């Protein structure tokens, strides 16, 4: 009898089928594979990394709860990220209702305060600042396309918008980022 295949060598669909049958280890492997993407998407929507981790965790738990609805003939990533994006959007709505929490300091970046100057000490901070000024959907579309490598069609499924809208969102997001980062580059040179 051949030894059982290692979970880290399995395809997503195989792991998902095992998870549907109740294999907790297979679901754990899927969590390992998609933890980075899920955390980044949640952070793109929410800004605050701690909130983002809470939302990503909510997303994984919801995915396990509904794993029976996943169609293994389709890719797992977009299915999971749609759930994570929804969990993050829910959390953001709840946060808006509370209206007590300001936007995460490194994302609320208007004005040229000394704090901002300190914050923009690297490209990462500048990128986050520029992302924060984009509309949420453009932000998510850009990150899913350029950072996570999903197709326009898959992003449309994840965000629940037409493919043409995704193309438009990515275009506008890139253009705005280019403007913002260009300004930052000039500002840094002057400094």
């Amino acid at each position, binding site marked *: 009898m051949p030894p059982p295949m290692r979970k880290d060598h399995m395809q997503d669909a195989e792991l998902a089928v095992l998870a549907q049958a109740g294999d907790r280890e297979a679901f754990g492997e899927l969590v*390992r594979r998609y*933890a980075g993407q899920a*955390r980044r998407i949640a952070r793109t929507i929410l800004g605050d990394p701690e909130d983002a981790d809470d939302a990503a965790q909510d997303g994984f738990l919801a995915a396990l709860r509904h794993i029976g609805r996943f169609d293994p003939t389709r890719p797992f990533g977009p299915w999971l990220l749609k759930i994570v994006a929804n969990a993050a959007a829910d959390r953001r709505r709840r946060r808006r209702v509370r209206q007590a929490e300001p936007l995460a300091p490194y994302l609320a970046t208007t004005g040229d305060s000394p704090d901002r100057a300190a914050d923009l000490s690297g490209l990462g901070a500048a990128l986050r600042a520029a992302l924060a000024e984009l509309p949420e959907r453009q932000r998510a579309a*850009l990150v899913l396309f350029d*950072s*996570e490598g999903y197709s326009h069609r898959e992003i449309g499924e994840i965000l629940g918008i037409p493919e043409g809208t995704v193309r438009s969102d990515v275009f506008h997001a*890139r253009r705005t980022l280019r403007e913002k980062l260009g300004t930052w580059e000039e500002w840094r040179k002057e400094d």
Partner: protein
Amino acid sequence: MSDMSPFDHRQDAELGRALRAALSAPDDAAFVQRVVTAVDRVYGNAEPGQWWSVLTAWARPSLVAAMLVVAAAAFWLGLWVGARSPGSSLATIADPLQTESEHLSVPALLVEDRAPTVDVVLAVALGR
């Protein structure tokens, strides 16, 4: 950002790397462990899809449901047998009283010299 046009419909690898670096939180392993722990906390230690855990989860409600079904079936069976049987217990109790009540009435009881017994009162009541 690379020099790619915003119109370009291909992924911008340079921008992608920068975005990943800017948005990635540290320590994915700790996050994975946190999710796995949350899964265990929410769903317990048993594997949710294993047949014995499914049976275990359903054992208690199934037993209660089975007992209710058996009790209901016994009750209805008893009624059905009682209704079909001419010498049923219900008929046995009612018949003598019914017979007696045919000769009695409330006015008759009121003019009696002696107080009526419980059986007589019951017979009159059933007769009405």
